[in-house]
């Protein structure tokens, strides 16, 4: 179960552009993590409290295949992402890098609302607004990858992919 305060972004966020070194050539991930999404929401990264949850619209991470985006989100202290929909590879990158992600519409939620993500149980809730959304529960394999902190640590523990 993940609990964290909402930090809201919009639709069609291209993480290749807004959460990478594209706007910060030659800078390392630590620097970029202080400036991510700056062009969309000035001060977003600086105001982001560790343990927060990004709440976004449709197609979050569209066209983004760079895993760097997820590494930067982790450095920012993002505990999870809830979006109406995700770019396909971005979603894979989230799982493979231990970033919980859930697909549902949290329209009406604003910055600071407390978000609850229960991916095993298949539920996302915002108690203060009376919102409870069902999401498809994650299969055991994907839960195990997330729990291990990503695919590489998962394979270190389970080189044959078998989960007990």
């Amino acid at each position, binding site marked *: 179960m993940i609990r964290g305060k909402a930090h809201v972004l919009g639709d069609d966020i291209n993480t290749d552009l807004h959460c990478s070194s594209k706007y910060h050539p030659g800078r390392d991930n630590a620097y970029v993590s202080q400036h991510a999404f700056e062009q969309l929401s000035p001060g977003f990264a600086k105001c982001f409290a560790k343990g927060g949850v990004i709440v976004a619209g449709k197609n979050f991470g569209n066209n983004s295949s760079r895993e760097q985006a997820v590494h930067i989100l982790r450095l920012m202290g993002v505990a999870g992402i809830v979006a109406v929909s995700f770019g396909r590879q971005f979603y894979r990158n989230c799982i493979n890098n231990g970033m919980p992600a859930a697909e549902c519409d949290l329209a009406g939620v604003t910055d600071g609302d407390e978000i609850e993500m229960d991916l095993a149980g298949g539920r996302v809730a915002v108690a203060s607004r009376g919102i409870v959304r069902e999401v498809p529960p994650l299969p055991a394999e994907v839960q195990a990858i997330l729990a291990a902190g990503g*695919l*590489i640590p998962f394979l270190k523990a389970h080189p044959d992919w078998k989960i007990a």
Partner: protein
Amino acid sequence: MGSTIAEKILGAHAGSGPARAGDVIVAGVDFAMLHDARASNALQRIGEFGAAQLPFAARTAFVLDHYSPPPHQEAANIHREMRAFADRHGVVFYDVGDGICHQVLPEGGHFTCGDLVTGTDTHSTTYGAFNAFGVGVEGTDLAAVMMTGKLWFRVPETIRVDLKGGLQPGVWAKDLTLHMLGRLGAEGANYRAIEYAGPAVAAMDIDDRMTLSNHAAELGAKAALLEADQKTIAWLKARGAREPRPVRADADARYCERFEIDVAALPPQVARKHRIDDVVAVPDVKNQRINFALIGTCTNGRLDDIRQAAAILKGRHIAKGVRMIVTPASRNVYLQAAREGLVEALTAAGASVEAAGCGTCVNITGHLITGDGDVVISSANRNFKGRLGNDNSEIYVGSSATVAASALTGRITDPRDVVGGTWRPEPKTA
């Protein structure tokens, strides 16, 4: 209830009975591809894992196609690292100038019908043209495949598109994929597989079928699968692929969406500047001036593309003020184009024919850079603002026939309106 091609191929590779859309499975992979633009991430991940032995190396290809030739020392150093790694572990290797990953994999006979192929590139959907489940992945995924031969997948829902009628001469699979983008929107097939079927697919040669599956990446498709026929099987066998075991969809397969397109009336299409899904018929923009014409990329850099261009430009010259670059998709394509006199015809017509690689796609090597106000017509797959290094230039995307016809006149031109613009390949079997 029956199964789609995606459900059958993924289910067969999971070894746990038929898979259903929505299932998450762990599947054995048949072949994997890593290109230079994603290599540092993947190799770092393998290093983190600390795998001394990579049992899957012999079924992995490294392809040096994006930084081709390398524009800076960092890229040249990645190439050195990839060469050394491939030598050490016995990875299949394609060096600078050998061609684009999505061309050299099928040409090399590395996979066959019914296979599961992962590549670190969204256009890995191309392998679907050969009835293989080709899917784009990232460096961590690729590292996992190289280390274990397996990867997790969510089995996608499938959109079935039945293509009726026949494409007119001068109209190509690219026009059809642009039409699809106009209809569904970019990412309109996100998470899902597409099955293309029907007489229009059967009539297409392999080059055009590869465009059909390749450009599905811009629709967001996870895979774009065609059924195999005699053309597919003959093509694969001629290149030494393993015995093809074609996979067909069941008549009662469940699709999340199904529709039919009568392609007979389809005119050539272009995507207008900055958006690949802002698609109009060529006649609607025919007065648009252009000053840079590009033919190449994994979408449209194959032999039939170069033949189209030469059919239009042979014995003529591109318009004054237009610059044109043609990049064959592979060394094999380049060699055959040279044998057929196409390189000479295009060079004499004012085009520059470059070494094989991803060259004409994006300004990654620095030599495609555009000036303020430049208007580009390209056979590539994407036209984001700034893709050719300048936010103040515009990129239109069309078929190779439309690009060549436009280079000839200096304006966006319907290939059906110029001599040679309705060229068709000779019927061939392999």
